[in-house]
């Protein structure tokens, strides 16, 4: 393989991995405050379609991204209202968000399937993804507010006793997660694809959830995990392109199989998971009890 090919592969990996980084770092912040949002896939799809439709209608890229992020805030805000105020089960509510998001995005996007757009240069977002990971890491480990976020995820009872508003902090964490998922979706429909197609995220939202476990809830490790996945997916495409005589479906399984294998390796160390997961993850907070 000559150096140009290698460079080309690296480019493709960077471009393909960026949405995973956005979605995973968003979910990581949500989970750090003690909330599990399984709606990543749904929020990504709604983010993707709202950006795409806005772009087609207005022609403005900036507006497209703004509308997309707004959609992420609305979707995650709905989730937040249910789990924080109405104290619904986080797992079930996240699933509902994904089912709702899949339906809503297909419904809105139906007339736009096949509409051509001019894609945006992805490198701005590739760099942005690295910057966001760095900022999140700085926020958690170098600022007082970041410490409060971690504290709320660790013990909402202690946080409440010290006078921190558990609901407000968690709301911020959930909304940030929603914005990042929408950003990941809009990047896919406007830069990566660039087009709209039903279910175009193809399980990336779920892989992002697995990446948070892989990263053992440490922001920097999101990058490592995401790029391993990105590498595996691109590798299978290349192997296919190089004409290995093997049915394509088996190559396409690679990201999903890789996710499972990674989960097995990371999770089998029970102690490590126990020590790194936010202690109050998925446990609802009842004020005044």
């Amino acid at each position, binding site marked *: 393989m000559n150096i140009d090919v290698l460079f080309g592969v690296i480019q493709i990996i960077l471009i393909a991995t960026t949405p995973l980084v956005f979605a995973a770092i968003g979910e990581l912040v949500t989970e750090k405050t003690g909330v599990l949002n399984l709606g990543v896939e749904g929020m990504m799809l709604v983010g993707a379609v709202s950006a795409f439709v806005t772009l087609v209608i207005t022609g403005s890229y900036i507006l497209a991204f703004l509308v997309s992020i707004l959609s992420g805030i609305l979707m995650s805000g709905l989730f937040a209202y249910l789990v924080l105020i109405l104290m619904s089960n986080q797992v079930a509510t996240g699933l509902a968000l994904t089912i709702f998001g899949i339906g809503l995005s297909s419904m809105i996007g139906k007339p736009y399937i096949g509409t051509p757009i001019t894609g945006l240069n992805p490198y701005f977002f590739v760099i942005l993804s690295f910057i966001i990971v760095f900022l999140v890491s700085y926020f958690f480990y170098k600022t007082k507010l970041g*410490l409060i976020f971690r504290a709320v995820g*660790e*013990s909402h009872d*202690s946080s409440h006793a*010290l*006078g921190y508003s558990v609901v407000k902090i968690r709301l911020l964490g959930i909304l940030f997660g929603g914005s990042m998922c929408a950003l990941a979706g809009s990047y896919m429909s406007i830069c990566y694809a660039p087009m709209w197609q039903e279910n175009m995220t193809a399980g990336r939202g779920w892989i992002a959830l697995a990446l948070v476990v892989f990263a053992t809830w440490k922001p920097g490790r999101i990058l490592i995990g995401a790029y391993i996945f990105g590498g595996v997916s691109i590798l299978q495409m290349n192997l296919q392109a190089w004409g290995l005589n093997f049915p394509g479906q088996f190559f396409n399984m690679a990201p999903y199989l890789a996710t499972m294998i990674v989960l097995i390796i990371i999770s089998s160390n029970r102690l490590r998971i126990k*020590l790194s997961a936010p*202690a109050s993850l998925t446990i609802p907070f009842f004020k005044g009890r």
Partner: protein
Amino acid sequence: MSENILAIKNISKSFPKVIANKNVSFNIKRNTVHALLGENGAGKSTLVKILYGLLKSDEGEITFNNHTLKVQSPSEARKNKIGMVFQHFSLFDSLTVRENLILGIDQNMSFSNLQDKVNEISNRYKLPLDLDAPINTLSAGQKQRVEIVRILLQDPELLIMDEPTSVLTPQEVESLFETLNTLLKEGRTILYITHKLEEVINLCHEVTILRNGEVIESSKLVNETAETLATKMLGKKLTEIKTDYSKITPKINLSSKNLSIEFNDPFLVDLKNISFDIKEGEIFGIAGVAGNGQSELMNLLTGEAIDGVSGELDFNNIDIKNFSPKKRRDMSIAFVPENRLGHSAVPELTLSENILLSQFPASDFQNNGMINFKNIEVQAKKVIEKFNVVTPGPEAKASSLSGGNLQKFVIGREILSKPKLLIISHPTWGIDAGAEHAIRQSLIELAKNGTSIIVISQDLDELIEITHRLSVIFNGKLSKSYDTREISISKIGLLMGGQQDD
């Protein structure tokens, strides 16, 4: 400045099922230690949570330093120079001491400033701290030290201490009292919440007694004895409980030889060479400060977590250390773990359904996997009746019972199985005095009929009252055993603090 630092006037607070505070009024004099005395459920915690901004009162007024105090949150309370040390620490286990201190102060403080201030406080009050240690590596006493330093960083005028001694050794209690005296000399005021009578007499200047949410008395402590305080606190006299040594037989029922387990987990305590013998009809107590291996030992004895156990646990000469809880029950061993809700009972299920949790060879609750609903209901009724459980009936959900009634139900369920050995952890934790008395009495009755009982408890008074013999667990090691009639409190205290057997 007026004589009173705090005046509480007609505070009322009710919850859906109970009235926690009813027209509570009393004053706290500046620069005194004021005791708030009452048994579990008397409304002490509710009152101080209102004071600290964690709960809102339905009615009433609080005056602090001559102005009306309306705190909406703990940080406002702290701005008003009110600090609180919680009974169940408000610390974050996986964060470091430094991070925990930062979380407890409201103003922005630079790193070196914080360091200096912590050092100064540590020296002045003799409260040494390792700032980089994660909280989960600290003992209960050290955790409390972190809480106190965190409050002192705010320089409070009024310090609220909520049952501060419940997790300390007698020696640690003494050094806590020294710290409190230093604080008093500096002109601060302390509101001391407790249900321990001796502490009130030894430490406090004034006392307010709460019963069922109402103030029974608020006055200077003169001529009060433990008995007079107890009568006021409980509203009645309870008969004394007496242990009976005459029914103990020489036959050894359970014998543990070098029982050990290693977890490799910073949240758990490894157990090292636990050895003891229990005779038929004997009540054996295990004392110790929380977090020294009690729950790990309990799990070994019940069979709930036994992966990697070594040594021997002989019950009537059969080594049961690898037996499951079910297999142990088949040999007529019964257990009552510390937590009622979610461990010895399922809150979402009815009392009848909760009967099914522990099945013994004699119980006739199922037939080839089919539940016999009639029999479990009859059994539930029997437990309710024999142990005076206050509840509408066997169809009530476990979650609807008060702590004391649910504990009576759980212990009754186990006792009715006529066990040969009963292993029980913290039998009267967090329940009212009436239920506490009834439970202790029923354990003594059970032992008289030949059952061996192991009681694991942090409550020294309880162990001294009901056990025949006791050992102390410290850092996963069990001391040799002592006759309860002979061992002194200070000796137990030293063992709880880690002194080796002579």
